């Protein structure tokens, strides 16, 4: 009895910490997803009774509108991720390596600020700027560049810009993190050894930044894929983002089984792309999500 008193205490704290975490993860993550999966394999027959079937998934492949939207969402999400990276890398590089050190903190802060504000407010701002009666049109008309207002909203380019804008933070912050840990003297040494800017970028900076790039890309990709607001408000009106299909099934058509199947497909897609990304770059999820 006496001999185990020390060990018993440790077990006690384990129980205290483990219980809430297990409850959280099982009740709100594991079981709901299992239920979602089960739901997606059921369908109502003619008499309105639920039965097991693959018809929800069959429908997805049969109807081009569904799988085309799916493919479109995936391709655009990858494009958005890539664009975000290309735009964010110079910014992160400037802040960590080029800007005077006393401005670094200020610039980083400035960078973060817009992202504390709700996505909705940011999208709204873009709408005020871009729509037919928007601010940009106003100025273009005033300066005589245009003679008739142009609708700049509700097209794919604008939507992609909006998605890039929304996800920017999640790329810049990890990039700043990895570039900060890159020793300046490595770049100086490469320069000293005669490397030009391009080879420094390819041979030194990018390889060092891989963990940051991967973690940024995963988050950006996932957020873009699952985004509803931006495509809905800035993209075309005809529900061409896959989350909108899910929403329509759940809320508009009230066909939860179909919606579950769509949801599950989206989940599989996002897990698959993340998994491939991790494999290609030889990273671990637990390392990337620090």
């Amino acid at each position, binding site marked *: 009895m*006496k*001999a*185990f*008193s*020390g060990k018993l*205490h440790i077990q006690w704290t384990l129980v205290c910490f483990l219980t809430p975490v297990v409850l959280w993860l099982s009740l709100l993550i594991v079981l709901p997803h299992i239920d979602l999966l089960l739901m997606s394999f059921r369908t109502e027959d003619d008499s309105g009774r639920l039965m097991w079937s693959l018809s929800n998934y069959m429908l997805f492949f049969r109807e081009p509108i569904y799988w085309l939207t799916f493919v479109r969402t995936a391709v655009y999400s990858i494009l958005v991720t890539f664009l975000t990276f290309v735009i964010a890398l110079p910014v992160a590089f400037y802040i960590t390596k080029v800007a005077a050190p006393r401005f670094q903190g200020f610039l980083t802060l400035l960078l973060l600020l817009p992202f504390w504000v709700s996505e909705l407010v940011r999208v709204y701002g873009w709408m005020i700027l871009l729509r037919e009666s928007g601010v940009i049109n106003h100025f273009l008309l005033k300066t005589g560049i245009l003679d008739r207002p142009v609708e700049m909203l509700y097209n794919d380019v604008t939507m992609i810009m909006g998605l890039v804008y929304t996800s920017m933070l999640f790329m810049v912050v990890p990039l700043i993190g990895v570039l900060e840990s890159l020793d300046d003297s490595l770049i100086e040494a490469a320069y000293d050894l005669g490397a030009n800017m391009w080879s420094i970028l390819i041979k030194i900076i990018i390889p060092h930044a891989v963990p940051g790039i991967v973690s940024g890309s995963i988050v950006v990709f996932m957020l873009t894929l699952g985004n509803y607001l931006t495509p809905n408000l800035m993209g075309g009106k005809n529900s061409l983002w896959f989350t909108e299909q899910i929403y329509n099934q759940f809320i508009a058509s009230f066909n939860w089984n179909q919606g579950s199947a769509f949801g599950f497909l989206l989940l599989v897609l996002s897990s698959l792309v993340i998994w491939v990304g991790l494999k290609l770059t030889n990273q671990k999820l637990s390392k990337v999500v620090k």
Partner: protein
Amino acid sequence: MQIDLSVIDITKKFDEFTAVERVSFEVNQGDFFSILGPSGCGKTTLLRMIAGFTEPTAGTIYIRGNDMAGIAPNKRPVNLIFQQLALFPMMTVEENIAFGLQRRRENKADIRKKVRAILDRVELPGFGEKQIDQISGGQKQRVAIARCLVLNPTVLLLDEPLGALDLKLREQMKVELKKLQAQVGTTFIYITHDQSEALVMSDHVAVMNQGTFEQLDTPQNLYNKPQTPFVARFVGQNNAWSGTVHQGQERYHEIRTDEGLIFRTRAEEQLEPGQRVDLFLRPEAMLIQPDPGLTELNRFDVVVNSILFDGANSQLLVSPLNSRRELIVALPQNRQYDYIDEGDKIELGWDKDSGICFRER
């Protein structure tokens, strides 16, 4: 005299690796007891078993006669000063020192009084309000000691607490720690890999190697009468020289070194002619150009390879003639040997009681 700590046949195994193997010793009340050994010898494991953070695989620990088996670390009458001190950075000096007393639910007035008294004792009066990051390394050291001593432990364990200090401060703290221990009279068990710390402060020192005690003795005996080759090598500087027993009688033996030099020296164990041995000779045991009148000395000629000037610790690196073996010889700075230059041939001599040889292992 009362025995504060008694450790009997204690063993600790981590999977296949045995960190501590059947170690037994006793520490008297008021003793300054050091455990000296290289890193990885098991001394920290031994200390952690006494503190209760690690459970022994076998053996027993008694503190003032009470078996410590199964007693949690927070219930043992021992306190530990950690290597990195482990002062609580989120508390002031006073809160740090009061922490243990508060855990004993002592009343506030008593705590204040005790904290103040112990701060005076470690010569930090008025430091109570300071934050931990506002005080110097040496002061942190004293706060860590005060934090333990205020609890009046039966035994105070110290895990290389001076390791983090710079050299000068370390020298100073050595002396302070010894004085403090003499004043408060608490039993100290001090572990270190620094032989000078152990020799300067301790009443008794145990030299530990690969999980066992090689020798437990007074500092003087460790230095002058090492009982194992490990102790001879580890405690103080030593020249090791291999050779063969040429002729043996009682305690003195005639050794022929691998270079063919013949020396008379002392041995603590029984040696037979033809036995391979290691001869240990301290740098300061060798006299440079000894007086020809000293007939009993072992004498041999060497060439000076280089002079390592380091004030009072200056040394010569020499090699016996026609040999690549390098020996270290103390070079007293009394101007007597200023004439020696690199490349010179000089004579060295040493007394047969200054060397010691062991069977080769």
